[in-house]
């Protein structure tokens, strides 16, 4: 399996997402990073799934060799799950924002742990 440019592109997008999760100070940016990384994995499935045929898997066989539909079905599920996770994380971040008035991860952590003892 050669390292084609598409692999590198998808890998780059994934790494950008992970970099965002680790490096961004703003919680919303972390969530956006997570979403970007999620999209990279989804792209991975769809792109390499799409290489097995020519056309969309509609009306099997009439318009040419249909693409393998399984990755597409899987990725739909993965997208759904991704949305739910992002929605949940936004709610959590919003509640924290309501309490502390800031979206900065370090500040919030300091404030939460200093409310202890």
């Amino acid at each position: 399996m050669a390292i084609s440019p598409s692999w590198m592109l998808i890998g780059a997008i994934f790494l950008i997402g992970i970099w965002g999760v680790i490096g961004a100070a703003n919680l919303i940016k972390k969530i956006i990073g997570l979403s970007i990384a999620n999209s990279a994995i989804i792209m991975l499935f769809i792109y390499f799934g799409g290489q097995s045929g020519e056309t969309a898997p509609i009306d099997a066989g009439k318009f040419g060799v249909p693409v393998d539909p399984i990755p597409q079905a899987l990725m739909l599920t993965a997208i759904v799950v991704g949305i739910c996770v992002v929605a949940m994380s936004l709610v959590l971040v919003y509640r924290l924002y309501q309490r502390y008035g800031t979206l900065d991860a370090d500040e919030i952590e300091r404030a939460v742990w200093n409310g202890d003892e």
Partner: protein
Amino acid sequence: MRKTDSLDVVVRKLAPYMFLFGLYLVSYGDVSPGGGFQGGVVIASGVILLAIGRDVDTAERLAPRNKLSWLEALTYTFLLIAVIGMVVVRSMFLLNILIGLKVAAGVSLISLYLFGER
């Protein structure tokens, strides 16, 4: 986002087409790409467009939160019944419509709640 007149007009004119497109995706789910979930999300994005482009109250006039809540719970129940009896009900069309309604209700509900917060 500054509310300008052009934004107002465009959003109001565009939203119904989004609902129509979403409905198309849902109903043609078994023969073309689309289906319950995708169509449902497109319908919900029509609601979201209204909520962002104008304000949440307009979107709420179209889809009040308590009614959405009921719709979602109802379709969820129907879905559960349909899934359990899946051996009997083999109609993908019906399942797609149910899923589409549920997803549309659910996603627009989430979005309306999130947008409604100050």
